[in-house]
């Protein structure tokens, strides 16, 4: 949105002046709103941006009357349409456990970046529709991140590769398997010296075993793993500190003081969900909360973790090492040296060190993946020196099967290809032609390989350069396995047969090994039935399991073979009633085991394994596979041996995975593209984030296109002013500017890989910036749906809270007591649904928004429509700033429909399309709605969304099975909004009535609540005093938004309580919370 940019340079001074002039705290959403520019005011006072809601066609009164007359005359006719005939197509043989109309849940896991997250996937008559977390899985505990939520759209993506092709011709898989036998045989003479297999980071034990087996046949072949956003620095740091590869496992719930060195540990990486939950457990104030934790964050760009920090220090990424060294030497790490600490950090160091030392054994230092190895090693050494090892941090072997120096491996591969020593390159997953460091010229080097094979979900940039392209099976279509970050293994079971006949990595590797077309099921099962696979925690290094030797019981294989209507995995989780988090352990499907038992006698061991296997599939975890901590010693003096990074003047660029499309693997995922990034609120694009101060100095405003130049490489990119960005630092997000992503992802954003060199994959120094004078329109939602000031966010420090726990309620602007024009207000006798949102634990991770989109069939509108303010998300996360523009405190406020008891929307609807239910919901009846939009106009919370156009894609067939059959698919001209997931309420109500009981507390989880890693969202019956939501509503922190309007919303918020260090932030009087 460019409607409200600060249009004059130098306006920053005025902003600062305005901030200083305000009494108390002011909360703002964007620099434009803070500046109160004329454009912003106009934007605010219009419901929709200029020209978005006007009749602009040159049609006069006559034309209007003609149209209106025709519409009126035909209005009645539209109701007379006869429904088209519909068919019912029953099964021929109905699968066991299948009850038409009732979903089943299957446990599986999503692999990404070398670890997996455990999931339960909802399946309606064989088609997966929604991803939930697996409560039994340690990295999920029932919640998910946004990528897992969005992955279901990836399965049905119409742009997925549909064929196996050789030079563009469609071929069967058997042709591929045959075609590769000759080149492979030719390689046998040289022991495979010309073979290279390039994969992403592999955390699948089966694939690891297959790789080792392949390498036994071809000892000179090389297996290269590479992820453009992999944890390379963490691996190198572990080598530096310990001399071996280990994973650090943080017990964040046990830490009182946490120092994050550029680490977004809450929302990035495979452990994000687990760590968020642990972090939140120390941020709750209800119940027996012993002590709030305190988080210090030193970081170069605004992150979700930084937004939850009690003290946040924006520093150039290259300066963070100096801070790490300074803190390390003060807590007693030998040889850390004392580099010149940046001015801004001076006053920080001593209070921080005192705080860390006061919490010995209860503190934690975490280094971010974007920081160099030495910072990681220093963090390990600091944890060691602070006595945290064994208490808040333990070390285990890595979840990835074969840790390696991935960067060096990729470079060697590129060199080998250039030297002509590679004759067969097999790329399984990943897109190196797009994402490899630009100076490796990977795409050019690839062309020197005689035979190139690409296995991937899309015919992407890499596939275009390969002779063979094998369409890969999505993780929801294939058998596989994966380890979670803590080592727990999960068997990945398919929810549906491959839509386009895709092949899994296992099947491709089996074909390369000469095993032909072995189904993935056999391969995975054979691995796990091999001795030692499931016992203990050891990596199967020594004895490669007989992946091809063992034969799986044929009958079991047949039972698991996908049927035409959809795969029927062997075990099912208990079908859940309503929206309740499915209890996976409730009904082990033992019955199919008997059905699958082969006629020939099987050994007791095989039967035993079969039972075990079914249990693993059912539970979604293989028990006792979590790693046991291992003892590692920090090498002495490593820090002294590494020279401190020299300071380089000038601008600095950091490369980060994008918060929504990650490294580019989700670029064609329209849900993620349209998801406003949690801190910038940008959609459909990336931009160079720049601090307002630096932008002011360089005379830049948001949307200006600049040219970045370094080492002969250039990049043109739009800038975006990001409060909280470190000065002289530009953050560039990866994953955009792709050319062969698909219809949603092509030509969105800027390809920052153009600037990402091998030596500077995280931090690039000495960058020249020139203003081009052009500008670029970015679709940003930060000023959409503004609630215009008022006390929306309420914050106190711990001291203030202790003095006055009900501080938030004292900030009400209204009368304080509910008004009613009736002498007796309506009484809700039965259930009364309500929700609380604890802002103190919300990290703004956006999982809830994607979960809502997936559950409620929310359409995607595209960038031009987002710029018109027409995005359809039922749930948005408002982000508020307060304080210094260069380093503001940042707060997240999820905003679903508030379900007001005195709802402003209901009274203005001329056709009663929105009305009140006896359980207190604002019902929205799409088939009644005539689209006057009065309700949206009158809604003070701005949570209603109107289908200006036919946003639902009704024509693309591959998207049909994606839709939730329990929610109406809306058409054009209809208003819609959050319903508190009324379909889940209905299901639970009916389930309870069938059992002659009341709905239990916690039985209904709204989609947002189920996805939330921190349990910030709690839903339930507020008439039940024992319910969790009623208890939270009784908390002194509980308040409702815009209470003075007397809308009596059912959604309420729990106020924020910060826990600052008084040495850094002197205690302020309690009145400080008062705004304006």
């Amino acid at each position, binding site marked *: 949105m460019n409607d409200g940019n600060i249009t004059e340079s130098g306006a920053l001074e005025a902003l600062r002046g305005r901030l200083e002039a305000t009494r108390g705290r002011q909360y703002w959403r964007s620099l434009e709103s803070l500046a109160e520019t004329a454009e912003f005011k106009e934007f605010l006072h219009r419901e929709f941006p200029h020209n978005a809601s006007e009749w602009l066609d040159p049609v006069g009164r006559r034309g209007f009357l003609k149209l209106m007359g025709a519409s009126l005359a035909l209005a009645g006719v539209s109701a007379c349409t006869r429904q088209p*005939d519909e068919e019912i197509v029953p099964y021929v043989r109905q699968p066991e456990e299948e009850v038409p109309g*009732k979903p089943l849940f299957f446990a599986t896991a999503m692999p990404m970046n070398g670890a997996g997250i455990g999931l339960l996937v909802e399946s309606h008559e064989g088609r997966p529709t929604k991803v939930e977390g697996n409560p039994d899985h340690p990295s999920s505990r029932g919640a998910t991140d946004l990528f897992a939520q969005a992955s279901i759209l990836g399965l049905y993506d119409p742009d997925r590769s549909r064929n196996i092709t050789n030079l563009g011709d469609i071929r069967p898989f058997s042709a591929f398997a045959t075609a590769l036998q000759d080149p492979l045989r030719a390689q046998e003479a040289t022991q495979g010296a010309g073979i290279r297999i390039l994969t992403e980071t592999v955390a699948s034990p089966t694939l690891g075993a297959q790789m080792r087996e392949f390498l036994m046949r071809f000892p000179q072949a090389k297996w290269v793993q590479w992820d453009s956003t992999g944890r390379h620095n963490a691996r190198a740091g572990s080598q530096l500190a310990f001399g071996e590869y280990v994973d650090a496992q943080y017990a964040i719930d046990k830490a009182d003081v946490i120092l994050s060195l550029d680490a977004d540990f809450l929302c990035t990486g495979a452990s994000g969900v687990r760590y968020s939950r642990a972090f939140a457990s120390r941020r709750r104030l209800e119940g027996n909360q012993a002590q709030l934790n305190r988080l210090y964050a030193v970081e170069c760009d605004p992150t979700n973790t930084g937004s939850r920090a009690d003290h946040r220090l924006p520093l150039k990424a290259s300066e963070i090492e100096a801070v790490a060294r300074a803190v390390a030497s003060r807590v007693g790490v030998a040889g850390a040296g004392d580099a010149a600490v940046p001015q801004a950090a001076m006053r920080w160091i001593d209070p921080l060190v005192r705080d860390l030392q006061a919490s010995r054994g209860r503190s934690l230092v975490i280094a971010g993946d974007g920081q160099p190895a030495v910072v990681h090693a220093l963090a390990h050494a600091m944890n060691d020196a602070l006595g945290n090892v064994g208490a808040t941090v333990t070390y285990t072997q890595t979840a990835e099967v074969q840790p390696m120096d991935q960067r060096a491996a990729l470079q060697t591969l590129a060199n080998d290809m250039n030297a002509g020593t590679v004759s067969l390159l097999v790329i399984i997953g990943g897109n190196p032609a797009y994402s490899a460091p630009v100076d490796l010229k990977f795409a050019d080097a690839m062309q020197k390989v005689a035979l190139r094979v690409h296995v991937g979900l899309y015919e992407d940039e890499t596939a275009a350069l390969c002779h063979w392209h094998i369409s890969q099976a999505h993780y929801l279509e294939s058998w596989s396995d994966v380890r979670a970050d803590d080592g727990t293994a999960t068997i990945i079971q398919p929810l549906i047969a491959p839509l386009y006949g895709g092949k899994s990595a296992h099947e491709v590797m089996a074909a390369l090994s000469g095993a032909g077309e072995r189904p993935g099921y056999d391969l995975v099962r054979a691995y796990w039935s091999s001795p030692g696979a499931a016992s203990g925690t050891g990596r199967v290094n020594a004895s490669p399991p007989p992946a091809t030797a063992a034969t799986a019981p044929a009958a079991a294989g047949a039972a698991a073979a996908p049927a035409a209507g959809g795969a029927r995995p062997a075990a099912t989780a208990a079908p859940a009633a309503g929206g309740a988090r499915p209890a996976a352990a409730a009904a082990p499907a033992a019955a199919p085991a008997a059905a699958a038992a082969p006629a020939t006698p099987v050994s007791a061991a095989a039967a035993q394994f079969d039972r075990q296997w079914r249990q693993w599939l059912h539970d979604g975890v293989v028990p006792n596979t979590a790693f046991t901590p291992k003892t590692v010693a920090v090498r002495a003096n490593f820090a002294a041996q590494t020279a401190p990074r020299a300071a380089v003047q000038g601008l600095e660029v950091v490369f980060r995975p994008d918060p929504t499309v990650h490294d580019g693997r989700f670029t064609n995922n329209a849900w993620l593209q349209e998801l406003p990034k949690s801190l910038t609120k940008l959609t459909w694009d990336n931009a160079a984030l720049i601090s307002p101060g630096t932008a002011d100095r360089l005379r830049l405003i948001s949307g200006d296109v600049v040219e970045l130049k370094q080492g002969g490489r250039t990049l043109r990119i739009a800038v975006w002013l990001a409060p909280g960005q470190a000065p002289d630092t530009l953050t560039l997000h990866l994953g955009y500017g792709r050319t062969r992503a698909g219809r949603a992802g092509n030509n969105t954003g800027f390809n920052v890989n153009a600037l990402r060199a091998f030596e500077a994959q995280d931090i690039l120094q000495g960058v020249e910036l020139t203003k081009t004078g052009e500008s670029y329109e970015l679709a940003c939602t930060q000023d959409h749906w503004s609630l215009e000031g008022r006390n929306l966010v309420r914050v106190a420090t711990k001291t203030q809270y202790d003095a006055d726990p009900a501080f938030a309620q004292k900030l009400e602007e209204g009368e304080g007591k509910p008004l009613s024009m009736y002498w007796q207000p309506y009484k809700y006798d039965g259930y009364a649904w309500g929700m609380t949102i604890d802002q103190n634990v919300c990290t703004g991770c956006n999982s809830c928004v994607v979960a809502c989109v997936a559950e409620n069939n929310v359409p995607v509108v595209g960038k031009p429509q987002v710029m018109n303010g027409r995005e359809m998300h039922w749930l948005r996360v408002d982000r508020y700033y307060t304080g210094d523009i260069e380093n503001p405190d940042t707060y997240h406020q999820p905003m679903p429909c508030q379900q007001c008891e005195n709802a402003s929307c209901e009274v203005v609807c001329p056709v009663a399309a929105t009305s009140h*239910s006896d359980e207190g919901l604002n*019902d929205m009846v799409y088939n009644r709605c005539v689209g006057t939009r009065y309700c949206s106009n009158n809604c003070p919370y701005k949570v209603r969304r109107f289908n200006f156009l036919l946003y639902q894609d009704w024509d693309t067939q591959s998207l049909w099975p994606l839709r939730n059959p329990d929610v109406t698919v809306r058409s054009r001209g209809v208003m819609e909004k959050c319903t508190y997931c009324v379909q889940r309420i*209905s299901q639970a109500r009916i389930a309870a009535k069938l059992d002659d009981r009341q709905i239990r507390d916690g039985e209904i989880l709204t989609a947002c609540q189920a996805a939330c890693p921190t349990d910030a969202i709690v839903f339930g019956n507020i008439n039940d005093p024992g319910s969790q939501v009623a208890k939270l509503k009784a908390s002194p922190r509980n308040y409702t938004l815009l209470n003075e309007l007397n809308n009596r919303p059912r959604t309420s918020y729990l106020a924020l309580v910060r826990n600052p260090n008084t040495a850094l932030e002197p205690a302020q009087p309690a009145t400080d919370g008062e705004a304006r």
Partner: protein
Amino acid sequence: MPQIFRRSANTLSKVSIFGLLSLVGGLILLAIVLSRSSYVTRQQIFVEQPLQFSHMHHVTDDGIDCRYCHTSVETSSFAGIPPTKTCMNCHSVLFANAAFLEPVRASFRDNRPLHWVRVHDLPDFVYFNHSIHIKKGVGCETCHGRIDQMPLTYQQNSLLMEWCIDCHKNPAPNLRPRDQVTTMGYRPAKDQAELGPELVKAYNVNPPISCSTCHR
């Protein structure tokens, strides 16, 4: 000065004014009548099926209970259309060679499902749940009519919203004991005016009539 309008213009104007009004009124009436007509609601309209399946034969002649085929009616929103396997349970033996059953055998043989035409077709924005109605003592017959007398199945009732709401507001006349739910031609043991309220109490029948009960 001559008259501009002749005398007949009076009549003409009256006719055209009232004619126009009645035309508009008639159109509106037509729309109302049409939207409630069986052309739109499909009430009482026979639907041609791919197979001459007779409920009358299976229920009246054979005495098969509804739930033998509609297995999920007590547990799910959808009553369930039997898989071909269910047909073959009997028809692998009975009428095993009958020509008109060839589509069933072909379906079973080739693993290709039968395509039935839906008779009771609610709009896609309406969510109906069978299980709860069975639980509360609404008989199959109450909505679907005398299935046991239908050689070819048709829709007995209009399925208009007012028809649903009528019962949700006053369920007592339509309730029967749970053990009689699948009975066809059910006669209440005592006066329904007495039995109905008793069942309302016994089964705790309190049907919600909020919009979101059915629309979501």
